[in-house]
């Protein structure tokens, strides 16, 4: 199982219950496709709180956070 959270303008893409099934070899890019999120709308990807790129392979139990470009302060 993967925990997936989508934020700000992406929040409507959050999967039901915030979880999707894990399968070996799954990358961040695959998850975007599954959730129907255009790649160009994703600016920051966190896997377990660390910044990663779209080709990152995921492990079972990972926590994935997807963000558009955000700022503030």
């Amino acid at each position, binding site marked *: 199982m993967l925990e997936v*959270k989508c*934020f*700000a*303008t992406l*929040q409507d893409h959050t999967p039901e219950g915030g979880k999707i099934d894990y399968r070996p070899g799954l990358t961040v890019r695959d998850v975007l496709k599954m959730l129907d999120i255009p790649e160009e709308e994703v*600016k*920051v990807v*966190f896997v*377990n*709180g*660390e*910044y990663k790129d779209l080709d990152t392979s995921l492990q079972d139990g990972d926590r994935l*956070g997807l*963000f*558009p*470009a*955000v*700022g*503030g*302060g």
Partner: protein
Amino acid sequence: MDKLIRINTKTNEVVVEDLSEEMSLLGGRALTSKIIRQEVPGNCHPLGASNKLVIATGMLSGTPLANSGRISVGAKSPLTGGIKEANSGGVFSQKMAKLGLRGLVLEDKPEEKTTKVIYINKDGVQIENMPELANLGTYETSNKLFEKYGSKVGILVIGPAGENLRLAASIQFTDPKGRPARAAGRGGLGAVMGSKGIKAIVIDDKDAPRVKIADTEAFKAAAKRWAEILQKHAVTGQGLPSFGTAILINIINEAGALPTKNFRFGRFEKAADVSGEKMAELIQKRGGVVAEGCHPGCIIRCSQAYVDENGEYITSGFEYETIWALGPNTLIDNLDELAQLDRLCDDLGLDTIETGNTIAVAMEAGVLSWGDGQAAIELLKRIYDPNDYLGRIIANGSAFTGEAFGIDRVPVVKRQALPAYDPRSVKGVGVTYATSPMGADHTAGYAVCQNILKVGGDINPLKKEGNIEVSKNLQIATAAIDATGFCLFVAFAVLDTEDAMDTIAKLLSARFGKTFTVDDIVNLGINTLKDELAFNKDAGFTKAQDQLPEFFSKEPLPPHNTVWDFSIDELQAAKVN
């Protein structure tokens, strides 16, 4: 030639000066810090007659240029004991600039407490003692002043905290809707104004001359490109207007750097309940305003009107920093309670970052329970009573409150409380906290951009590499932006847009009729920091104060289990010399 007005708060004498050639090419923070460096003794008492409160418009303020209406307030800080510039929105800066005024300097201090109001219009300056305003909140004071002077004036005002010389006191500015919800918050500048017996300054630009632009055609062309740059960038064009600055709650939480329970944890389990997404949803449902600007000409519009369940206005300028300091940091997880706390801070004239941290320190001491929003509201209300001793302690900020209760977990640098990014897991901004002449201040060098948001570069927030350099460069760039009158949020777009700095140079050149290069802008930042560091040296600061509290080096921060690992000597490389 733009002018500087000096007001002697003891004698009410007013002197109007033409700016010198050197000063005429400065504005905002560059001007406040230059005047303080030249005229205020480093070792003076910040609440004494030798300190000066300097209010300066930006170099580009008063023009129709997008997002150019910010104002700088400076003095020797009673909180840090060093130099201070606090930056605010509101309508004051543009009105002041349209009157041809670049700076106002409040000097000396009266022998007895006064509650004076300074009124400035095209004909000059009037000063009136209005004891009926004594100890009133900033909202009621503003309403009375709008009744007296008309609804179109701009107001700069202190609340009971400033009048009673509390170290966490802010100076509040009215926004386009007349709400005193914008703040020059940090460093206790409200107390400096209170020490001079000035309750408010009212600025009236009726029939004021326009700002003179040396080359209007060149200015217009560059201004058009400038607006495009801001509108095209995803952060300034889309993210900030949609969700406000509280859009950061979720991303900083996800990054494991949202300081929780007085900097014990990097994630708050109720983060979603106090997020920008949640705020926008509530405001929409209740009929408030999701996006509004803090000054005319703002096209980013990160402010809002937050309303209660009945649609009644509570607060605006309800910022990420405010929500974090009063919320995750104290475990208060109810947005309505946080909005009331923000309203109280604005009305009392208190810095929200300092006050949120202070409430957390008071929770450490057992004065109130963790997460108890109602108790926090009652605690702040005590500050209205100038004789309430607990109110006095709390309004003096985190370091003072820690000392009053014997608490050793107090997150301050140079006695100023830390903002909303744990420095162990956002090391770039930690370098800024440690080394800025302002004390712990995220705006002084916002490496959160490169560390977390991936704007203007990508530097690992958990490791040391690259973080000294990025903080140093951002501290320089920020000092320059703070001179122009631009909102600092333009930096998100500037960092990612190739011709942005060149566009700023064109704007400055067209405004002043003198060629500004990108190097000149960088040098403006460097020279401002040099003035500030030199002042602090005279005020007694050494490198020993350029460090975070000890617990950041000893306690690993979950979830990344990072510690703060820069030495004082390593950190010196982040300072200009």
